[in-house]
């Protein structure tokens, strides 16, 4: 049997090509993901491990938990602790580490690296072993900074140049005293690192006289754990934590691995979708091959092959196909893994160098996925093959595939669909966390139901296209009839496309609606013209707020200052605002009391009020950062939203209790309203600082839109694979149909249908099948998008369904394009068919 199966694979290699390609793409996706994530995480782990070379034991402050009205706090690492650490017998040296954020502008005034990886630290003593200088000298005082060699090269800075930097708002212009290299993981990943002398760093980052960490190096002969034990004894109990360098490196590696693993899982979901779509093609191909070989298989049965042997021969074929696809897919996957690395490099993300990692696990996964998926999908056709009676071999009639009644199938499909719709609808009435499970279950049921029902749906939906097709004369008529001729095959082909488009449409509908609602939320309650914040979301120095207040044209401004406090034995975040101006900057609906913020009077949002059982006039005690307590009174209750919520109090009341007040953002109202000129004026007033963003409501909308577009485009890219596999499916079905109908096509050519019309016939059939899949996909996608939105809507009062008509139109056009594209090759084959060979009887 094995030999027969092998010969069959060889005999049908052209017809199996699309199947192999489909499986191969899926396997390539899987192995590409594995290779890519393994390679990246390996490289990151190696580079971050290097960063711990100079640390044998790290001393970190131990967070003191909140208790009663006393807010938890992080103790300070003092100079005394540093000296004590350096004095333990096993210590060779101890470094006090100060860390912070410093944005560096390039020569055009633009922020280097978007700000999210712009870090800063202190240069320790005269010669810091962590940062070997390649040029210049160590930084001294506020006017000097050292920058890492990569950043210097990228921006073109040399020793002696003046650079514009910003820590928390105000612009500083020190000169570059030196350029250094480092093993720092952040720099290896493409970030920038600025170094100041220790006193400057402590001052800039608001930690005068204290450190974030003390790194202790061991004397030769002293182990990391021995040193750690010595330090534990020497340092004040309960205030510090010690960790060995090895443990730090291991923890870091684990963290990288776990963050890569969630990325891996995300990618594998999409690979799974592509593979799932691929199974439709495999099943279709083997069904068609079995149907075409009915006689041959019946002959095998007639000469004594058992049913099981026939099934097995089909499965062996599938195994061979799967194996070929898996091996080629694995090779392609390794290529994709390597390609992805350089691709994300070209987007500006730097990945540490490292070898391409192909683990035995990757190889095994690729082979298993490719072979199992193919064999599983071929299993049903294989069983059908076994059911062919031996007598079929004798029949002189052109054997047809059994056209079993669709009644059972339709009943089953209707049940699944109805159950799916019911569960989804039920889920939309639940709250967003409870409803997720039922929603997913319902979605799966409905997709399965619709898939089972597609043969039934194909007739009316394709009939609806008849008037259009009539315009194409005989070609159109024949195309329509051919497309409903084998409803199961058409259904499987269209379903493959449907799945991809359902997901794409669903995501688009949901994202569009979400974007709209977040947009409304962001601007609804804000009367301010501009919101000023740090580009990377860090806190702003209060200086920025003061500068804005004094800027000509600014009529009102208020910083939003976050501070933790203990209230009712829980930690709550207070929002400090300028009580005098906040009323002019926001437009919050006040449900009860009045919007009065000042002294001990505060306003709270409904949710907070309800959870604490407060009403207008209620009193409560707040335990501040500095350990002091204060009685506050609720003056008003307002309707909160995603942007503004919680307890709002006057900064004059809050700030005295903060050691280092800093603002999340500053709202600004101007005399002239939002305009390019106003924005320019504000930016100039802030020293044209690239690290500070001045955004109007429109800018915020655009930014929200941009982030949604980015996510959507990534999803489109990932789902594109499923669509490509579906295209292969359409090509496959058409090519096989053309092959099966070669006699008919030959006859049509003989009685006068020209090549162009034959081509058009195949193309139209392809178009009909693809659009059928497209309509189903877009329809289901809209339904799922709506349902998921209902679920999320319970959390967002501003949520409202927005149907992206243009995009939906584009998706249908895409389906049509898929149809036309997929038909190119089969249509050519049909038109070039040898008429004489085709019409000759057997």
């Amino acid at each position, binding site marked *: 049997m094995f030999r027969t199966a092998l010969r069959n694979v060889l005999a049908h290699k052209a017809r199996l090509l699309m199947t192999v390609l489909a499986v191969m793409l899926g396997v390539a996706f899987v192995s590409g993901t594995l290779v890519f994530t393994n390679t990246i995480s390996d490289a990151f782990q190696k580079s971050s491990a290097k960063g711990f070379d100079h640390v044998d034991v790290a001393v970190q402050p131990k967070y003191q938990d909140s208790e009663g009205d006393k807010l938890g706090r992080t103790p300070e690492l003092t100079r005394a602790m540093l000296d004590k650490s350096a004095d333990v017998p096993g210590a060779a040296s101890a470094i006090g580490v100060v860390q912070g954020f410093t944005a560096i502008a390039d020569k055009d005034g633009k922020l280097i690296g978007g700000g999210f990886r712009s870090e800063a630290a202190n240069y320790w003593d005269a010669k810091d072993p962590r940062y070997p200088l390649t040029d210049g000298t160590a930084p001294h005082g506020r006017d000097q900074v050292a920058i890492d060699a990569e950043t210097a090269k990228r921006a073109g800075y040399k020793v002696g140049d003046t650079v514009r930097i910003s820590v928390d708002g105000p612009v500083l212009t020190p000169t570059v005293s030196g350029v250094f290299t480092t093993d720092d993981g952040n720099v290896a990943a493409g970030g920038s690192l600025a170094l100041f002398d220790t006193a400057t760093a402590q001052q800039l980052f608001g930690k005068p006289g204290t450190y974030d960490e003390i790194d202790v190096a061991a004397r030769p002969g002293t182990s990391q754990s021995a040193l750690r034990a010595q330090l534990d004894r020497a340092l004040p109990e309960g205030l510090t934590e010690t960790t060995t360098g090895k443990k730090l490196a291991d923890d870091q590696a684990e963290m990288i691995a776990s963050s890569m693993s969630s990325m891996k899982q995300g990618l594998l979901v999409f690979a799974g979708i592509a593979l799932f779509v691929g199974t439709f093609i495999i099943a279709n191909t083997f069904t068609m091959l079995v149907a075409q070989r009915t006689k041959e298989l019946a002959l095998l049965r007639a000469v004594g092959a058992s049913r099981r042997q026939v099934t097995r021969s089909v499965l062996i074929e599938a195994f061979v196909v799967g194996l070929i696809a898996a091996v080629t897919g694995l090779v392609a996957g390794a290529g994709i893994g390597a390609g992805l690395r350089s691709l994300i490099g070209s987007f500006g993300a730097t990945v540490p160098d490292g070898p391409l990692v192909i683990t035995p696990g990757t190889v095994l996964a690729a082979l298993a996925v490719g072979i199992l998926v193919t064999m599983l999908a071929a299993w049903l056709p294989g069983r059908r093959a076994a059911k062919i009676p031996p007598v079929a071999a004798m029949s002189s009639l052109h054997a047809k595939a059994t056209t079993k009644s669709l009644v059972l199938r339709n009943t089953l499909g209707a049940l699944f669909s109805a159950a799916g719709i019911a569960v989804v609808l039920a889920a939309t009435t639940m709250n967003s966390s409870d409803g997720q499970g039922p929603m997913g279950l319902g979605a799966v049921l409905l997709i399965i139901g619709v898939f089972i029902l597609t043969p039934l749906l194909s007739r009316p939906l394709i009939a609806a296209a008849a008037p259009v097709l009539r315009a194409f004369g005989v070609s159109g008529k*024949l195309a329509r009839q051919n497309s409903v001729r084998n409803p199961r095959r058409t259904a499987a082909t269209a379903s493959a496309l449907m799945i991809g488009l359902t997901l794409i449409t669903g995501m688009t509908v949901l994202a569009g609606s979400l974007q709209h609602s977040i947009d409304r939320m962001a601007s609804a309650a804000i009367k301010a013209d501009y919101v000023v914040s740090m580009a990377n979301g860090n806190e702003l120095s209060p200086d920025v707020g003061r500068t804005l207040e004094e800027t000509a044209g600014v009529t009102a401004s208020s910083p939003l200052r976050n501070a933790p406090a203990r209230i009712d034995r829980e930690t709550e975040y207070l929002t400090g605002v300028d009580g005098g101006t906040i009323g002019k900057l926001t437009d919050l609906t006040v449900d009860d009391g009045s919007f009065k913020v000042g002294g001990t009077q505060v306003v709270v949002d409904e949710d907070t009020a309800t959870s604490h059982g407060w009403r207008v006039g209620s009193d409560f005690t707040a335990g501040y950062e500095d350990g002091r307590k204060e009685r506050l009174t609720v003056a008003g209750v307002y309707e909160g939203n995603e942007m503004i919520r919680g307890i709002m109090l006057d900064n004059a009341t809050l700030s005295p209790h903060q050691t280092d007040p800093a603002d999340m953002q500053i709202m600004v109202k101007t005399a002239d309203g939002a305009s390019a000129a106003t924005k320019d004026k504000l930016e100039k007033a802030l020293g044209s600082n690239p690290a500070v963003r001045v955004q109007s409501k429109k800018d915020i909308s655009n930014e929200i839109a941009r982030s949604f577009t980015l996510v959507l485009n990534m999803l489109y890219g990932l789902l594109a694979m499923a669509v490509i596999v579906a295209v292969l499916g359409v090509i496959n079905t058409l090519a096989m149909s053309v092959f099966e109908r070669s006699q008919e096509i030959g006859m049509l050519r003989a*009685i006068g249908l020209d090549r162009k019309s034959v081509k058009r016939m195949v193309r139209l059939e392809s178009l009909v099948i693809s659009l059928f899949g497209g309509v189903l996909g877009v329809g289901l996608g809209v339904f799922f998008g709506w349902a998921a939105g209902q679920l999320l809507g319970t959390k967002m009062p501003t949520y409202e369904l927005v149907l992206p008509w243009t995009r939906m139109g584009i998706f249908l056009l895409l389906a049509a394009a898929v149809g036309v594209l997929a038909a190119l090759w089969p249509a050519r084959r049909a038109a070039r068919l040898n*008429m004489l060979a085709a019409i000759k009887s057997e």
Partner: protein
Amino acid sequence: MTTTPTVDRATAVAARATELSKIYGQGETQVVALDRVSVDFRQAEFTAIMGPSGSGKSTLMHCVAGLDTFSSGSVRIGETELGSLKDKQLTKLRRDKIGFIFQAFNLLPTLTALENITLPMDIAGRKPDKQWLDDVIRMVGLSDRLSHRPSQLSGGQQQRVAVARALASRPDIIFGDEPTGNLDSRSGAEVLGFLRNSVRELGQTVVMVTHDPVAAAYADRVVFLADGRIVDEMYRPTAETVLDFMRQFPGGGNTSGSGARPQTPEFDAKGRTS
């Protein structure tokens, strides 16, 4: 005969092959399927082409009907010389001037009997002549089967649909390739009867390839082919005279110099000619 058309129906030529040769392959493997064949098919005449398997009878029909290309010589359908035509023009010629009846796979399974009959006119985008269509359908006795699909018709009925299709567009000439090859003798006789009636009563021109002497007996004239050459012809044949003549056949033989051909006609290379 000259090539100028004559008004006289009895002598007007519907199709003519002159010095027609068809050669497959080259050098050692060269096979001569048609060897300088010249033959006329006159209007309103029913011609049968006979010969053992591999004699080139199907090839001759395919070449004259514009289904196949030829190596040298000329073929005319009415006034049109086929040799100079491109595929597109040939297709149009087949559509407008020629009717076909094949041994099998004559009908599209997705179309009803009536739709199959009007298919060539649908392809051309022409409206069928209602009166004529009704006459043809009545003649082949399909009036009550028009909305049936081929799978619901018997083999004989299917072939009658094919005959009706060939007649419906009033082609200059109808070619049949073993049209009764797959039918039982009664259904075969019916189909042949319709073809003969269409010649006698409607003045249709029919050329049919067959290996069955009984079928050939329905024709006005039988042309005998062997080894790619016309070896004889017979007017007003009967089954007996045709059979007698066939018995004298050398049975293919290796006289044409195309030595690759096997002796036994029944087991001749199936893939090339039938």
